[in-house]
């Protein structure tokens, strides 16, 4: 550090920025690299997404192609994970199922967010009776078992991916509303919101410009964690026959069918089970990792 530029600063009266503060706190990237859960979680999640995308254009075999000549085949070079009771390629079905599961999960999480986040913001901003009303409504939905919703929906519309997505999304709405509200309440009590109000910034603009960006990390983390729950719920509901009907390639369905042939070919149960576990683990780790990355203090504690 030379002396000259600093003297210039002194003359202009500007405060020189101390070196350290130029870099500021460690970047998100830096924190990501130092969070094992974030790294492992992102790798698994990325893998899941890649598989889902690839399955759209290519799978080793058609996931629905029946080959009665090669039922219960052991894993081999032709069928890496073997075949099932109809001779369908297990790997192809798992890949295709990834796409379906991910699609159902993402849609239900986003759908729940689309309702829950604005509801939470509204409750935080308004307070009073209208705010309470929204909260109590959320409580009501929260108290209603998602399984029951799925059963009711399935009775009326038949089991389908749509039924699963609807039930799961409905169950997630209050979660989003609560998380958003508590985060927004925190931000709304801060000086910069008061300062914005004093500047004449409108309520909606305050929510959009100040509150949403500041609770985004919280909401994104929550979304990731809920995605893992959605995967599990999708598998469970489909397993119960409330989701996509056969012969769809769905993890829950595969598990249910394989269970019947456990004596003949136990591996058939293992593949979807491992896949579901891995996928849930991946999204969960990613969620935890994101929380570390966005809020380093929390991890230090």
């Amino acid at each position, binding site marked *: 550090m030379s002396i000259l530029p600093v003297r210039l600063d002194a*003359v202009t009266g500007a405060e020189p920025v*101390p070196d350290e503060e130029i870099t500021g706190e460690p970047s998100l990237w830096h924190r990501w690299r130092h969070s094992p859960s974030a790294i492992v979680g992102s790798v698994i999640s990325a893998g899941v997404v890649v598989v889902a995308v690839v399955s759209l254009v290519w799978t080793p075999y058609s996931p629905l192609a029946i080959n009665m000549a090669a039922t219960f085949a052991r894993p081999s070079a032709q069928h890496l994970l073997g075949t099932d009771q109809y001779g369908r390629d297990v790997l192809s079905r798992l890949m295709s199922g990834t796409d379906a599961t991910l699609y159902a999960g993402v849609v239900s999480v986003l759908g729940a967010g689309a309702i829950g986040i604005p509801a939470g913001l509204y409750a935080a901003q308004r307070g009073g009776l209208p705010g309470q009303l929204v909260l109590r409504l959320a409580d009501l939905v929260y108290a209603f078992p998602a399984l029951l919703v799925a059963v009711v929906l399935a009775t009326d519309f038949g089991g389908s991916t749509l039924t699963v997505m609807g039930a799961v999304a409905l169950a997630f709405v209050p979660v989003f509303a609560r998380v958003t509200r508590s985060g927004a309440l925190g931000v709304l009590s801060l000086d910069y919101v008061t300062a914005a109000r004093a*500047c*004449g*910034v409108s309520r909606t603009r305050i929510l959009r410009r100040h509150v949403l960006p500041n609770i985004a990390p919280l909401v994104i983390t929550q979304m990731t964690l809920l995605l893992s729950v959605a995967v599990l719920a999708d598998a469970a509901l489909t397993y119960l026959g409330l989701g996509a009907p056969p012969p769809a390639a769905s993890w829950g369905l595969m598990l249910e069918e394989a269970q019947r042939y456990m004596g003949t070919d136990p591996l058939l149960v293992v593949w979807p089970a491992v896949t579901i576990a891995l996928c849930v683990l991946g999204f969960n780790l990613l969620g935890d990792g994101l929380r570390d990355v966005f809020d380093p203090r929390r991890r230090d504690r």
Partner: protein
Amino acid sequence: MTLLDVEDLVISSAGARLVDGIDLSVRAGERVGLIGESGSGKSLTALGVMQLLPRGISSTGSIRFEGRDLARISERARSSLRGRRVAMVFQEPMSALNPLMRVGKQIAESLTIHKTLSRAEAKEEAARLLARVEIHDPRAVLRAYPHELSGGQRQRVVLAMAIANHPVLLLADEPTTALDVTVQHRVLRLLDGLVRAEQMALLLISHDLAVVSGICDRVMVMYGGRVVERATVGQILAHPRHPYTAGLVATSASLGGAPSAASRRRQPLPTIPGTAPSAAAASRITGCPFRARCGWASPRCLEEPRLETIVDGHDVACWHPLPAPAAPRRAREASGLAGRADVALGPGLAQAAPPVTSDGEGAAPILECRKLVKVYRPELARQGGDPPAAHIRALDGVDLVVLEGDVLGIVGESGSGKSTLARILLALDRPTSGEVRFRAARIDGSPERALRAMRREVQVVFQDPLGSLDPRMRVRDIIAEPLHALGVEGDHRQRVAELREAVRLPRDTGRRYPHQLSGGQRQRVAIARALAPRPKVLVADEAVSALDVSVRAQILNLLGELIGRFALTVVFISHDMAVVQHLCNRVVVLYRGKVVEEGLVEEVLTRPKSSYTQGLLAAIPRLGKHVGDDRSATVGAAPSPD
């Protein structure tokens, strides 16, 4: 006899030397002050001495206390010394007390850990200790939980726990910083008396030179993790030798001095340019840590100066120590700091319109309120039906007129209702009763749409510069926000650039985020945002209170200059009489929601009428004034239970 002898204490974290080789000695019964701004390493030094450093931070060096090296003995042996022979008092009394435990039990616990006292004896002793720290109703306080006590009472309880075992050394880290001025005065006087009576040695850590000078014999000045000067209080105040110390003394003296004449109002204060480096940044500086801000810096300063004795008992770590026999004022000039304040304003700006101190005659009222009452209903009362007494009357019939061109100071301690008043004046909160007018139009209870004209003309700056800036917005967007929100016409980018110049932020600040700026720079951003829509009135709520001493003077100079340049009417809310005296022409003193005194600053400061104002003025710590020197601080003070 030397009680504590620290040699070459180095405290480091992840390779950064946050405290870089400190020598420190305290003799029995001696009172030593440790002065420094945030990031100077003063608190770490205290924790290092006690070997209580947080995980991830380690220390080397020898810490001999009563002949034993604290760094080398077992943790068990250290624990038996802590509390018994050395006690600590921290800044935040609330976090030092267990919220779920009654005060009596906590004090008794500190007694029974080291001594074998029966429960009854311990309780008796606890009551005696509370009386010792001048708590009025010890029996009642023994049964209370910490949250039921006021800040001052809590700090007294902490003090009682600290002296419970008659330690020989008391370490106090900013013990009064969180307290109000009058409470601070009383707690400091208590501390002074206790240390004397118990013949304890005291290591007092503070950012406030005036506080330290009022209680200590010797002072050590820290900067960037190093001790830059060490001398007696008298020597430091009369002949500071290190340019940094000289700057601190000059800044403290000019703000805390005798009431200044109106002609000197808003004259630039001497400042130390720049900002103190953070501990981590300082650890990377080789050579003198202060040289970047020093008017005397030379190539020699790239080499680290050692702490060397120049006169008996006066050590300084500087290659260019200031000449010795200079009166404080001369020393200030010699350091080039007083002169630089004018230079810092830049040509042309220094001659900016002199402050208009109309002192009221003929000016029109711009903002006024009548019989303002604000009652807060505690949550509990709403649910459980507490008696109405539980309601807090934050404002209790306040009348206030702000005239155009006024720079009105509103002074009050915590609980005086000054921040509530600010929120109501800004129409951010509604009064329970009474009315607020802006240019004769009622603004209390008006819908937001009707307030747009007023919003454009009345702007605000808050205390905490980081909290008042959205962490996810760039500085240029923050400054432009009121322009968008209020639909101000014209080239916003141009205007932002103008404002950035006006508050003298470096050009590249625009694309930065608040966390990348220093505290002073953040407050400059907040000021620029407030000025964006060309307001007539600026409400500043404790706008300089959260800033370090040397930065505070810079921001005060900036405010003073802007007031003149933009002919601003200002409502300046503060707990700090010295700052109000420097900036304002009129002052209103609030006490428990009521105006107890108002008038021209000179009048109120020299001839305060209300006893509360008298107490407030007497409580201000001033350089070289010993806390025990005068008793007036409590004589007339309305007995605010601290």
